[in-house]
């Protein structure tokens, strides 16, 4: 979230027509839809708003922690006869919860050695890895004006292909991992290519097509896992064999930590996406198409080609997110491999305002929240749902920048003032 400077560059803030402006009879299909202008407004929200949204979410999360805590509720029933009990219980509950979050996601202060101390942070980075991959891909789509909901399906298909290469083929060390990773990217790319082509050639809306492809992917994987080829020998459970060790991402900090090479690959991809979007002609075309497809077409750009390429690249990145699961942490394919990653990644991309650095930061934040889940439950005895509530609140606040601005009395961004004037 340190890329605040880029916001001032007029990339995304190309002059926009004020909404509802009269005298636009030729509102063709290329006209930025209302969804797209909302999307753009979210992408333009300042770093401060994002940080404040996180602060507000953690604060409301704190309130919920208080309500969820049994001792607080008990002490609150006699608040007026002995208020100190309530405050002490509140302090204990909040202190315990935030301490558990810190111990689970950043540094474990209860550990007796250095490895134990830093283990939570490596776990956070591990959890962040698939979110970085998928978030980067979605970010490219968002900046090109495509609301891609299909990371879930792209991730699953990528994971399926990669896992298959991982357990069914037996290749030498090095080559096996490379082929498996490429398999993941290819699977995701195919699943992204389909809605891209449909959008470019027929105008089918990418939101609907990608949502439907998510279902197709999930049911396809569920069916594949009923076949002997995808099941373990002597077992009928829908779970694939463990991928060969030669196809697994090596652990970069030794066997004590779960952090694997996929994390470094994700950072490399972040750099690659930055270069693509900020330094290459192709990236300029993507951004131009996102800002105003009609203008881009008039300027001689091939909008259809841009849509197809954007969706394919986004799919490949989502497929790589699948590799973090099947070649990194899980090492097996099941119908639950994707979890809710594809949807969390949408939040991550929006929170990171679709910029690579922001996406990495947001993914680490979400990875941290997920990594804190176990300690939050086991150490503080709180339901894991608190984590999801905090995540959802962040989305809510990010999606409503004016709300955050009014809570914290922040000034409105320049262009809104103009519109209002």
């Amino acid at each position, binding site marked *: 979230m340190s890329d605040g400077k880029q916001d001032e560059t007029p990339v995304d803030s190309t002059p926009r027509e004020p909404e509802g402006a009269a005298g636009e009879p030729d509102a063709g299909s290329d006209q930025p839809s209302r969804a797209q202008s909302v999307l753009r407004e979210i992408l333009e929200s300042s770093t401060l708003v994002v940080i404040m949204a996180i602060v507000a979410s953690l604060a409301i999360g704190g309130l919920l922690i208080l309500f969820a805590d049994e001792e607080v509720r008990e002490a609150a029933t*006699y608040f*007026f006869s002995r208020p100190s009990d309530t405050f002490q219980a509140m302090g204990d509950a909040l202190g*315990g919860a935030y301490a558990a979050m810190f111990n689970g996601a950043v540094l474990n202060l209860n550990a007796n050695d250095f490895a134990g101390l830093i283990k939570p942070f490596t776990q956070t980075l591990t959890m962040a890895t698939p979110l970085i991959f998928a978030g980067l891909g979605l970010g490219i789509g968002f900046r090109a004006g495509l609301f891609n909901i299909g990371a879930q399906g792209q991730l699953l298909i990528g994971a399926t292909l990669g896992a298959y290469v991982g357990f069914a083929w037996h290749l030498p060390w090095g080559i096996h991992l490379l082929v498996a990773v490429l398999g993941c990217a290819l699977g995701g790319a195919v699943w992204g290519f389909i809605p891209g082509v449909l959008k470019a050639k027929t105008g089918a809306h990418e939101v609907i097509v990608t949502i439907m492809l998510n279902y197709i992917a999930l049911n396809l994987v569920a069916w594949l896992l009923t076949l002997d080829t995808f099941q373990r020998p002597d077992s009928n459970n829908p*779970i694939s064999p463990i991928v060969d060790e030669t196809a697994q991402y090596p652990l970069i900090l030794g066997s004590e930590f779960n952090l694997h090479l996929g994390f470094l690959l994700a950072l490399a991809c972040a750099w690659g996406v930055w270069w693509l979007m900020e330094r290459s002609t192709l990236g300029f075309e993507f951004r131009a198409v996102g800002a105003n497809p009609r203008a881009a077409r008039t300027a001689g750009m091939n909008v259809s080609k841009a849509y197809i390429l954007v969706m394919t690249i986004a799919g490949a990145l989502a497929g790589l997110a699948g590799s973090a699961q099947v070649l990194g942490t899980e090492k097996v394919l099941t119908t639950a491999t994707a979890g809710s990653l594809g949807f969390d990644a949408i939040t991550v991309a929006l929170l990171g305002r679709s910029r690579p650095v922001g996406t990495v930061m947001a993914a680490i934040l979400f990875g941290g929240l997920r990594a804190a889940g176990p300690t939050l*439950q086991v150490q503080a*005895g709180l339901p894991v749902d608190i984590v999801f509530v905090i995540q959802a609140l962040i989305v809510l606040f990010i999606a409503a920048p004016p709300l955050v601005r009014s809570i914290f009395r922040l000034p409105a961004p320049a262009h809104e003032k103009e519109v209002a004037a």
Partner: protein
Amino acid sequence: MRNTIRYGALVAAGALALAACSSAPEDEPDSTATGTETETEAPVEDVDYMACMVSDAGGFDDASFNESAYEGLTRAEEELGIQIAEAESTAESDYGPNLEAQVAAGCDLIITVGFLLGDATAEAAAANPDVNFAIVDFGYEEPIENVKPLFFETDEAAFLAGYAAAGTSSTGTISTFGGINIPTVSIFMDGFLAGANYYNEETGGDVTVLGWDGTDGSFTGDFDNQTNGQNTAQGFLDQGADIVMPVAGPVGLGAAQAVQSAGDAWLIGVDSDWTQSAPDYADVVLTSVLKNIGNSVFDTIEASITEFSNEPYVGTLENEGVGIADFPEGIVPEDVAGALDGLREGIISGEIEPSTAG
């Protein structure tokens, strides 16, 4: 807008104030000082033993095996006076970290639920030989020294239900369907079919079973979508079936709805006694195929406090790990109900094979 918030806050504060008027409890020295586990004032003596549980991605409120297992854990807390901790998984990537967190929290016994946790449990067991584990609904090919598998011969009980259903059906057609085709589901369906086939052999009847043919059958595709359950059950009813056994967790509630509105049809519940767990449909429940996961978890914890053994627990008719619930009065013909005791003995002694495979 601002006024609304103010009034809202006032009302909320008032409500809280009213709720906060009761008197403080007698001062007990250092009652809330530690603030770790809530001290239950149960009459049982506290035992220094900590049992923990990790759910699969379904969560502890899945109205299925996670929930049953969790009931066993909470019962152990109440009746045995042990400490418990639980961790709900929301995704596959949570399994390992949840297990690690529980090992770090000092759990003596960690119970995991479902085959999806098989790998993670084996890994954690290998890394922590001092900690004991148990896993519900899964067995390893090679036994692991500190892992106790708990599984259930549910086909034995489903066989009895299938026999009873075949003897009760007035249309001569009974049916079953599952959520997803996995062994823990299809074992119910297979026992059900075997029971109906046995009825046909014994009595020369001609009862047809829809939804399972011994290797494949009807599955709704998940364990959530009740509408699919309703549609599938309706499909069976339209084909003349008058008894439906859904093996799909909460999806079965959809089937119960279809059966109830059809009238003249019966439902067979699974896992728990549906006259208790789905009281809205108690009037159409013929019986339930019981899978006492909660009991097995409780027994495992109780036994492990004194001595852990990795001997698999197998729930059977004999040890009442599985069974069937009572029939409503006057529905199942007496000769059919009377034959069940003999069948039960036959299955326990091994004379009767409760699956179609044998």
